[in-house]
């Protein structure tokens, strides 16, 4: 919620104003939902907030990966499967080892994520097969690979590694998971966005031909977007390992759909070239908090899926209508 205020508002024309408007809007929505949740809970405490962060963390990473790819004009329907695969690899390798080994495993898993992303992007660019088809097919491959690593939910991870996301060491209202998330944003996306490579992502996403004519290496940029996506998916897989303590070959099932919902709510245009990563992160919290509120209300939490699907469609509808009015 406070993250928006920290970002320097760069008055660079209307498009940026619109973009910030969206991010602020989704933050207001999150704030309102937090108030609703606080009033719904019998006794709202920092523990409830920590649970929210734990629930939202894997989705937030999935949304960041999806957002990076969609901004560049692609889409990845294999994010969930990639998360399940990295989740299983991490849990299998970490089982029975200490924190030192766990850090090595983390680095290895992140490298695997980067390789998966590079492979996906290279196949898409080299074969000319559309993103949807390639990633739909590769989702089968990674889901199968997850089953090869772990047939049933299992594996393990050191307690210290789990504490990285589940505890709140600094302040009870500042869970470790939130710090991890902010670090990932600050270390990966925030510096990248201003570099030529970051700008190339937006350029390729908004008009591939114009980007090519301006000297942007379109193919390499698209592959890079998938590399980013793979990196964030691997972070998501690690977050799953850390928050659940184990690996599960089916853990990624919902994250593909939910990541698309989160980027749409977060103001990333499916056509590419618009939006950032902050909106999707906040949207991941919105999606997770709706489920938490339903639980507090004693409503079947499966309605969360209904609300999420409906919300996703309504947001795009509203966006479309707004655009029509602005053009008129």
């Amino acid at each position, binding site marked *: 919620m406070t993250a928006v205020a920290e970002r320097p508002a760069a008055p660079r024309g209307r498009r940026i104003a619109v973009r910030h408007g969206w991010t602020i809007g989704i933050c207001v929505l999150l704030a309102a939902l937090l108030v609703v949740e606080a009033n719904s809970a019998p006794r709202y405490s920092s523990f409830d907030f920590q649970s929210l962060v734990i629930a939202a963390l894997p989705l937030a990473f999935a949304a960041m990966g999806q957002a990076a790819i969609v901004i560049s004009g692609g889409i990845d329907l294999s994010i969930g499967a990639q998360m399940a695969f990295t989740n299983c690899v991490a849990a299998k390798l970490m089982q029975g080892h200490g924190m030192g080994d766990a850090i090595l495993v983390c680095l290895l898993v992140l490298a695997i994520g980067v390789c998966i992303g590079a492979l996906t992007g290279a196949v898409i660019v080299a074969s000319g097969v*559309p993103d949807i088809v390639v990633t739909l097919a590769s989702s089968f491959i990674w889901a199968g690979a997850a089953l090869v690593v772990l047939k049933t939910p299992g594996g393990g991870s050191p307690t210290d590694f789990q504490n990285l996301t589940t505890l709140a060491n600094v302040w009870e209202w500042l869970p470790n998971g939130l710090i991890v998330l902010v670090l990932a944003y600050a270390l990966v996306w925030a510096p990248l966005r201003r570099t030529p490579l970051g700008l190339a992502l937006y350029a390729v996403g908004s008009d591939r031909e114009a980007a090519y004519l301006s000297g942007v290496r379109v193919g390499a940029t698209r592959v890079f977007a998938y590399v980013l996506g793979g990196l964030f998916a691997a972070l998501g897989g690690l977050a799953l390992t850390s928050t659940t303590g184990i690996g599960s070959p089916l853990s990624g099932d919902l994250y593909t759909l939910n990541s698309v919902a989160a980027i749409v709510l977060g103001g990333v245009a499916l056509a590419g070239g618009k939006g950032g990563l902050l909106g999707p992160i906040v949207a991941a919290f919105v999606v997770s908090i709706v489920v938490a509120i339903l639980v507090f209300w004693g409503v079947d939490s499966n309605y969360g899926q209904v609300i999420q699907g409906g919300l996703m469609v309504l947001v*795009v509808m509203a966006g479309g209508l707004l655009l029509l009015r602005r053009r008129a």
Partner: protein
Amino acid sequence: VSAVTQARRPPVGRVLADHPLIMLAVLLVALLAACEIAQPGYLSGDQLGTLLRLAAPLAILAAGQTLVMLTGGIDLSIGFSATAAAYIMTGQSSRGTVVAILIALGVGLLIGTVNGIGVGVFGVQPLIMTLGMGSVVIGVLTVRAQDFVTGAPAVPGFVNDLATGSLLGDVPKSILLWGGLSIVLILALRRSGYGRMLYAYGDNPIAVRLAGTRAWQLLILTYALCGVCAAIGGLLLVGLTNAADLGLATSYLLPSVAAVVIGGTSIFGGVGTYSGTIFGALILTVLDSFLTLLNVAQSVRQILYGAIILGLAALYARTAGRA
């Protein structure tokens, strides 16, 4: 020898590009031969009948997907609509077979129409509209599973017989439904105004809109038809398995898209045929059967399945010069 093949290659390539069905037929025969090699005596009339029986639901789901993809869209809710139709039909079977089937088709029609309104009237991207719709459908189905059931849930005998029964010898009964649907669809795509407009819209939606046609009606009709196809596919599927659960057809999403893509329909719209999709569905079914014959673990099967679909799509993109 190499010089001769080199000289002959361009015309062969051109023939293949002009008639992609030849390549698909060769691929299908090659896969069947591979099955025969993996297990001698595999290719019996009985086995071919079984393959057709298994291919029918997929091919009908893919028929709806073909229509939608010809407009440049995609229906990611197809597995959920099929599941919903099949599940609700078994729940309502105590009302009589005809009513239950009509209710199932109505469910498909309703879901498809809502998709069509979202895409056609409100201009929501098909991917988002159908993804959201699928999420709503499966959510409602999960929460209110009991409300859709009156009396003991059962698959009507007629549906079961249609999906598993045989006509003469080994010819499956479902081929009647599938064949009839295919003929209607292929004729409609080639000869009717609807078909022409579908290709025109897929090729250039803006031009079609500027030409003064009501594109939104086309889109609503197309998504509604896709929903009905999904429902029919779901019925055949539940007829085959003889028990409906909430995961019945959800795994059919990728195969339905893959069958269309392998069959040569462009995901960007405007190019493609249903005959190609039929080959796509047959190839996928034989491929699945081949992987079963190899007797590898489910996980490895899944990896091979995804990789081969990817390879076929890439091969097709290369040969036909379009994606």
